[in-house]
């Protein structure tokens, strides 16, 4: 678990100077560490994709509300007037 934290600090450049120096030394001494860094980078990319998909779905739900609910009718008419021609 400590390794996960250290890799995060390495990826986000957040650790202290000593931590960073220590990590650089560990990268040389521990042959499996560079690979773990790569997998953790992949994990972060996956979290970002997951999150974007969730956010997009949330926004789509809001869009459907705005364009289907009667209480937003004035807004709907305003938008549609731009495309009625």
């Amino acid at each position: 678990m400590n390794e996960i934290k250290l890799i995060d600090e390495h990826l986000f450049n957040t650790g202290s100077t000593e931590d960073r120096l220590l990590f650089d030394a560990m990268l040389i001494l521990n042959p499996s560490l560079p690979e773990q860094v790569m997998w953790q980078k992949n994990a972060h990319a996956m979290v970002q994709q997951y999150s974007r998909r969730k956010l997009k779905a949330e926004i789509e739900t809001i869009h459907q509300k705005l364009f289907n609910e009667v209480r937003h009718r004035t807004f709907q008419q305003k938008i549609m007037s731009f495309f009625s021609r």
Partner: protein
Amino acid sequence: MATEINFGRSAADREKGFIALYKKAFPAVAKYVSKMGGSFDDAKDIFQDALVIFYEKKVNQSGIVATNEQAYLVGIAKHLWSRKFEENCALTSLDKQFDISEEDELQPSSFKILHYLETAGQKCMELLKAFYYDNLPVNTIAELFGYSGIRSATVQKYKCMEKVRETIKEKSLAYEDFVE
């Protein structure tokens, strides 16, 4: 009148923020897209992508420096429009900043892994989203996810990161075309 948008801490807070942005900025975007010959669906697609970019900038530590956030959002949307529909549009440094299209470049195996994580690892993915994407404060996350405190929420974050990392590693060996 320009007001600052606050996405708060929960999905309900975000909804309020997005509705406010829709009401304030979508008319200008729709008008612009219609003037440029685009359809309602074009305006919708462009605006939704702009909202994602706006959100990511807003919750990022560096934040948004624009004094008028609505104008900033409309600006992103117009930029996305020109990039998408105008031929010979020279790529600018802005494009890199506003790039949310990596999804299109994901390998099929990445989609499989993502799909697996969406179903089998949803709880962890939600927690990691709150930490790394929504950038919520740890005490807020502890409260939202029902942890006793900052420490146990943080421990869980690293456990989840490890779990996701190991899942990706394991699945990648099964789906060979996985590349970074």
